[in-house]
């Protein structure tokens, strides 16, 4: 039959074009990321418009090189400088819902402990709950954000931070290794225990902690307890350092008498206390400061 070869090639062409069409319009494999609260978020593609409602999360996003994808930040985010141009959408606990909606984000990252997270999900927004509180949480945050942003090198980046920390440990002055550090996070005598991020940093750097473990991450310590614990080094904020001797019993403390005190500027305090990419720069400052102190 004369028309069969034409029908066959027409048929093949039809199949080819339909398949191509189907392939083109089918969705790429969807991303599913699980947050700290166990709730999974499914994205059709890596996020390009990101709102962060926690300073540490903004820092991680920028550290992963996705700073240009930030369309909204919370009012407490203050680093890196590139975030100064990003729209502020309120606080982590009281974000402005309307402002967020208007930004049309395809990813919102925030702490799971905020009550408003349910409201945001309720509005149909894509929310990923992450709250890095310790080193292990930070590792998970890097991995989760890497998946959500489609950045494959996220894990590698975190491993890099860890190894930088290891290198830093070797630069600690031998006389200060094992020294017991009292690290204060707030003027109200909230100290960093070994179970906190800062505490873990101190341990990785080879320092001891004046606070024993088991008291929680940020126990409120009585001044008398610190005197009895007799730490080797005091690390306090630079606003508090002038008032230390006014605390009952502190003027006689050996660490104060021998001026073994490191006064933290706010930026370093943020870097050390916030679990984020600045852990290395913060640790660098700390090691340099301690190395300079004279060990008695």
């Amino acid at each position, binding site marked *: 039959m004369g028309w069969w070869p034409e029908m066959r090639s027409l048929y093949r062409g039809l199949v080819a074009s339909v398949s191509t069409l189907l392939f083109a319009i089918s969705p790429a494999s969807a991303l599913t990321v699980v947050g*700290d609260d*166990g*709730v999974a978020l499914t994205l059709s593609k890596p996020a390009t418009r990101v709102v962060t409602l926690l300073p540490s999360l903004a820092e991680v996003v920028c550290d992963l090189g996705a700073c240009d994808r930030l369309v909204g930040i919370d009012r407490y985010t203050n680093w890196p400088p590139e975030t100064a141009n990003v729209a502020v959408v309120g606080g982590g*606990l009281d974000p402005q819902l309307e402002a967020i909606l208007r930004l049309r984000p395809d990813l919102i990252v925030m702490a799971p*402990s905020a*009550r408003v997270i349910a409201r945001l999900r*309720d509005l149909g927004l894509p929310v990923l709950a992450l709250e890095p509180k310790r080193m292990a949480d930070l590792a998970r945050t890097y991995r989760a954000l890497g998946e959500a942003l489609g950045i494959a090198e996220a894990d590698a980046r975190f491993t890099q931070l860890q190894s930088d920390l290891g290198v830093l440990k070797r630069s600690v002055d031998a006389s200060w290794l094992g020294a017991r550090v009292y690290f204060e996070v707030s003027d109200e005598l*909230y100290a960093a225990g070994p179970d906190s991020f800062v505490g873990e940093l101190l341990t990785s750097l080879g320092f001891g902690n004046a606070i024993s473990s088991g008291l929680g991450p940020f126990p409120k310590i009585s001044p008398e307890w610190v005197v009895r614990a007799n730490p080797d080094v005091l690390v306090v904020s630079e606003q508090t350092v002038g008032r230390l001797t006014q605390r009952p019993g502190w003027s006689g403390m050996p660490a104060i008498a021998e001026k073994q005190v490191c006064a933290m500027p706010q930026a370093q305090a943020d870097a050390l206390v916030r679990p984020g990419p600045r852990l290395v720069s913060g640790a660098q400052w700390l090691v340099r400061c301690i190395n300079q102190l004279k060990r008695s």
Partner: protein
Amino acid sequence: MNARNTTSAVSVALTLLLAAGALTCLGLMVGDGTLRWPWGLTSDPITAEIIWQIRAPRSIGAWAAGALLGLAGAIAQAIFRNPLADPYLLGSSSGAALAVAIALALASWLGADVSGAAFWGGFMAFGLTGAAFTGALLAVILTVTLAGGVAQGTRLLLGGVVVGVVLGALTSFLTFIAPNVLLNMQGFMLGSTALLNWSAVGRLLVVGAICMAIAATFAKPLDALQLGERTARSLGIPLSQVNAIYILLLATVTGAAVAHTGLIAFVGLAAPHVVRAWLPCQHRALLLLSSLTGGVLLLGADALARLIFSPMELPTGLLTALLGGGYLLWRMGKVGRLS
């Protein structure tokens, strides 16, 4: 007498409803830094979403919560025959706060272990509201138990004070040992209408309607109560039963409001005063009008909270405290006695 009061009450009620309508429109216009009626809603899906999913439930929810608080305030002032009574005086606010603090602390402790987090993730949505409501009810039950029953007003008040102080201390202790709970608690204590969605509105309206209906049917005994407990008994009022019903209503209504908006100050206290200054009336009308007034007050405060520093918003509870306190101060100065 009767007839004249009824027509006045009806006209006041209508005025309050109109005010609520007007303020709701205002509430729909406020929020993005400008004040304009959002024409052409269907054209921009984002704007439509904002109007219908954020501003609308928030405004109506604020009205509903305010109405519940106004009703609770009127009930409290009637049962205790005290113009300074507010919905929280049987310890319901402290109970709700403690329950929320416990829930937050548990969620954060258990959330640290990620495998437990899945349960608590869903918990945050319903759990905190449910916890606050349960806490409020349990605290009132505790107060009634301490007071040895519902019959004696002074014992109930004292019990309420004790429960409030003790539970408040426990809450402070909890925020002390779990400081990460503190920030969330501050938001709760100050009160906010930001979290109101349509299902919250539904719950508030249902609870409000049922409780209002029950309260209105027992309003006559409340009038008799104003003559004193013994006289009310002599007129045949079964004091224990009436007190029990009203305390249950008070706990339910206050618990529902607190569960959704946190501790909003002054609305419950001020609403009955506003009504009485306008139109002295018996309790059947007072309960309804106080409720409508409370609704207008909180709705207005919500709109104002979003308007003053738009697009930033103040916590609504802050505004009600300032406005309510200011109003009461003005009344004191004007009248020379607290009416």
